[in-house]
């Protein structure tokens, strides 16, 4: 039972990683990162169930809040990118290299 939750969270996490390294659209990348964070949340909640303490939930809350803040910033960046190039493909933005 517990294991299933954990396995699910691990799967989610790996999906997130795959998304980050495979997708080039900025939105998708950020969504994959959110996916990873949520996997972490899931793990927290599961473990707090294991330990019969509420700490895990609190931490999940915290993480959600932070994630929200990050998302806000991310959206601003997305707008900025669109202003500059009109595209949201990450490979377009590779002036800085070498």
């Amino acid at each position: 039972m517990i294991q299933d939750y954990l396995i699910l969270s691990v799967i989610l996490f790996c999906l997130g990683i795959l998304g980050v390294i495979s997708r080039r659209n900025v939105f998708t990348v950020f969504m994959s990162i959110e996916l990873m964070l949520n996997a972490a949340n899931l793990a927290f909640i599961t473990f707090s169930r294991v330990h019969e303490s509420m700490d895990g939930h609190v931490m999940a809350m915290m993480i959600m809040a932070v994630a929200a803040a990050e998302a806000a910033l991310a959206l601003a960046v997305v707008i900025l990118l669109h202003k500059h190039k009109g595209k949201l493909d990450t490979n377009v933005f590779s002036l800085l290299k070498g």
Partner: protein
Amino acid sequence: MHDFLSLLPLVIITTGAILLMLLSAFESTKVEIASYISMGFYGVAFFVQLLIGCGPETTIFSETFNGMLVANNFSMAACLVILGCGFFTAISSHSYFKVNRFCTLEYYSIMMFSVCGMMLLTLTHELISAFIAIEIMSLAIYILVGYERKNVKATEAILKYLILGAFAGAFYTMGAALIYGGVGSTKFVEIAATLNIDKTISPLLLGGGFFIIVALLFKIAAFPFHSWVIDVYDGASAPITGFMATALKTAAFALFANFLALHTTMHDGWVTFLFYLAVFTMFGGNLIAIGQDNIKRMLAASGIVHSGYLLIALVAMNAEQFSGSVIAYYLAAYAIGTLGIFASLSYLGGEGEKRANFADFKGLAKVHPYSAAAITVFLLSMAGIPPTAGFMGKFYVITSAFSAGHIALAVLGIISSILSMWYYLRLIVNMYFHEATDTFEVQGRPLATAGTFVLVFFVFAIALYPVVV
């Protein structure tokens, strides 16, 4: 009441940040005013921190904060370094925005927010609060990196930094989750307690620690996770680059050290990893730095190398009675050098940082002999030539490595600093041994020059009177 005192600098900075944020609502206030105010706050906080000093290790408001925050010598030293970084970054920003006019008052406020994030990071002994602190710091710095909205490079920098930073953050949270699963708490003391009971690290704890260390390695730009640092430093504006290079690294290392020091088993468990990582980081950084023509990119790469040295210090540190003095001293020495160079860059770089490459600084010594001399001192300090602070830092790190028995690591460190000699000397050669092609016009009397010379003084001061160790 001591608890509150040791928290006071953090409080001061936070109030300053909020105050500035409020001030920026008023049209009339000038940017200069804001910079002066922030300098004032940094200065006050700095001296408060210095005055309260630190007695024994104290857990701040153990009931209220549930033992999350612990203040000790190391945290104090780190806070001092961070505040100093804030102060001098404010100064160099002041001069920088004389020529590049895209600054608003929020800039300084945001910077101060990031500083409180960092100070919190040095104090915290608990994973989730550490995460919060990291995010306070990071979000602020994301904004600062991309502050020049018109500049596509800055935008690209923030994109890269944001994606990768968030990526690393996700790892961090996962790690925290696993450790929570393993221990049932995220407080360092609890973790230490469990480690005391069963001497081996349980798989959950291992994986969790692994993920957290990965995230921290990303923050300090250790070898496999270093790629972002060069592009981001390049894209960000000079003062911010200096700020990131110094303050952020200090905070990250503070947390790293605290995390590893929480128990000997924890430290020993990761020593082998850190050993190889240190070697790879040093040499990888050197090899990247060799090829660079842009000074900021070179400094970014050399920052990687210095992270390598700091990793040596982490490997060599003694988790039993952890003082962190070596790390703190090295961070301070490195910070002084780097801040100095970026301060000079901020007023020599010209509009839109048109002077960014080695070649652009040919013959600087003929036009601005004193600035050139200052830059030379900073470079020599980073290269570790006596009698500069950099040399002392390197000396302490290598000595600690030797006495911890990591002789191979120490020798490799020496070799890497031989390699690093070339790209530091390269700028000196450009400044001194060529005729001036550029006029290096500088508007007015930038405040940063004063800052630069104060830093020069510090380079020699903390070298000749090594109070920290």
